[in-house]
């Protein structure tokens, strides 16, 4: 019994520590957004006790930059959601193929390395050529150019992660279904996909987060109409320095949609079947 109590205490201790670690910068951003400009560089932690919170930064943002921020949020949402969904669908299919089938022209291992290699090149190297491509397609300053770019960049993540997940699902399950008369598509849809739900969600979250935070291409490929949240945040720096208070307000605004999304989907990060792998022996 004692061992169990100690284990419980340890678990809670680590959870609390990890939570403080993860939450502190958010807490700092939130409280700093309520500080007056003169208080930004002071070590004031607790509102009302150590400093007087003020709404002036939020009001100023809403009145002066509200439209730009809303535009950035909208574009970011569209670009990130669409590209993440595309990544998961296309990448999921590719990952499944690499997990289940044997390719003979190019070996699986080589295709996998090819997917990894897509991430080797720093984005800077291809920024201007991408700009030229989209300029010729007439898609400059259009969210569609961002969607296409992000799908191409982040597909390796979903492909590789989902390949591992699919590999971990016993092949016999689909083979039994095949024997029962399904074709591979059905087996994929009705057996592999549901079992891979945690992996699909994980891939979606990763691709979404990467697209949400992507800065360089959002900067290069957009001018005004397709501007995204990271570019709006970077706009808080100007020739007179950085407006840290606006960085904080915009960070808080920028983090909210992804966190809501993560909350909604995290239920699916748990697989119904396996119910946790390490519960094991106590």
């Amino acid at each position, binding site marked *: 019994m004692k061992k169990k109590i100690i284990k419980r205490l340890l678990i809670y201790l680590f959870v609390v520590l990890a939570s403080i670690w993860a939450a502190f910068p958010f807490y700092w951003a939130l409280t700093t957004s309520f500080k007056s400009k003169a208080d930004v*560089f002071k070590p004031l932690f607790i509102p009302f006790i150590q400093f007087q919170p003020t709404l002036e930064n939020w009001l100023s943002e809403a009145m002066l930059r509200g439209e730009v921020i809303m535009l950035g949020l909208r574009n970011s949402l569209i670009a990130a959601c669409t590209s993440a969904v595309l990544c998961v669908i296309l990448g999921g299919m590719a990952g499944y193929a690499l997990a289940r089938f044997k390719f003979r022209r190019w070996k699986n291992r080589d295709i996998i390395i090819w997917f990894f290699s897509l991430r080797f090149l720093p984005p800077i190297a291809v920024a201007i050529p991408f700009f030229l491509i989209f300029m010729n397609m007439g898609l400059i300053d259009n969210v569609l150019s961002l969607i296409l770019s992000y799908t191409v960049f982040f597909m390796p993540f979903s492909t590789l992660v989902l390949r591992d*997940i699919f590999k971990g699902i016993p092949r016999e399950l689909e083979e039994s279904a095949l024997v029962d008369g399904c074709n591979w598509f059905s087996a994929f849809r009705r057996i592999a996909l549901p079992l891979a739900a945690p992996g699909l969600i994980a891939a979606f979250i990763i691709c979404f987060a990467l697209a949400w935070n992507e800065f360089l291409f959002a900067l290069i490929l957009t001018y005004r109409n397709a501007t995204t949240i990271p570019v709006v*945040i970077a706009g808080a720096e100007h020739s007179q320095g950085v407006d840290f208070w606006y960085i904080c307000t915009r960070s808080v605004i920028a983090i909210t949609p*992804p966190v809501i999304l993560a909350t909604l989907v995290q239920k699916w990060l748990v*697989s119904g079947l*396996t119910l946790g792998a*390490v519960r094991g022996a106590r």
Partner: protein
Amino acid sequence: MSGEERIKYLFLLPSVIMILSFIIFPLIYSLYLSLTNWQIGRVPSLIGLSNYLKVFTDYRVHNSLTFTLLFTIFTVSIETLFALGVAILSQQKFFGNRFFRVLFTAPFFTCPVALSYLSITIFYEEGGPLNNLLKLLFDIKVPWISDPDYAFLSLCLVDIWQWTPFLYIIFLAGLESLPKEPYEAATIDGASSFQIFRYVTIPLLAPVIITGVLLKIIESLKVFDIIYALTGGGPGVSTESYTMYIYKTGFRFFRLGYAAALSFILLIILMILFTILAFRLREVYYE
């Protein structure tokens, strides 16, 4: 089995075609640029491999590569252990488990640009929150940004904070997808928690861990956003990363040829590394 023949291409090709159609031109164009001496206001002329050879005498390349390598090793190792630990922790039953999962995932959603600026206020030496706490507890003032070693540490801290959730999500998904049977068998055989972890979980999770770690290594080698605002590569050039030098060369100085060559050098290094690794990882990736 001709059905399977067609099916497998049907599954794989959409993504491959989409990727290829967008990256072929940029790759070729970039390769072409790396062989020229492109400058504003001048017709570029081919200069062969001299951009690549210049790397051997450019001390900033050596410096940034050293920093980037050290940074990668340090951050990836800590993040892997940290993420694995928290992923296992997340699978225990405790109050607020679902909230904790979202909370621990949230750092990955912060925009690196915003994080970099925010860190300036957090690491502010003359009275920011960290130094204030440290002064109260240990009466020390840590030069987070103005000293090269501490600047390295503060960048590592920021990266660990932001990217541990990345590995955490992958590991958690992997853990949740593990089959139940081995655990049942092990429990029946009377194994302890630790033995189960060591002999069942780790081997089964190995592919996922390796994929995650490889992906993170690649990303770490390209670290840029968090460094730019927080330390600017300083003090001096002690925290200038390889990609930051490429960015400056390509976009500030507009020496597109040299920047392209530097990018391809990274590509080549990683290609060699992965080909070597591929032989070692045959068991994991070989079909």
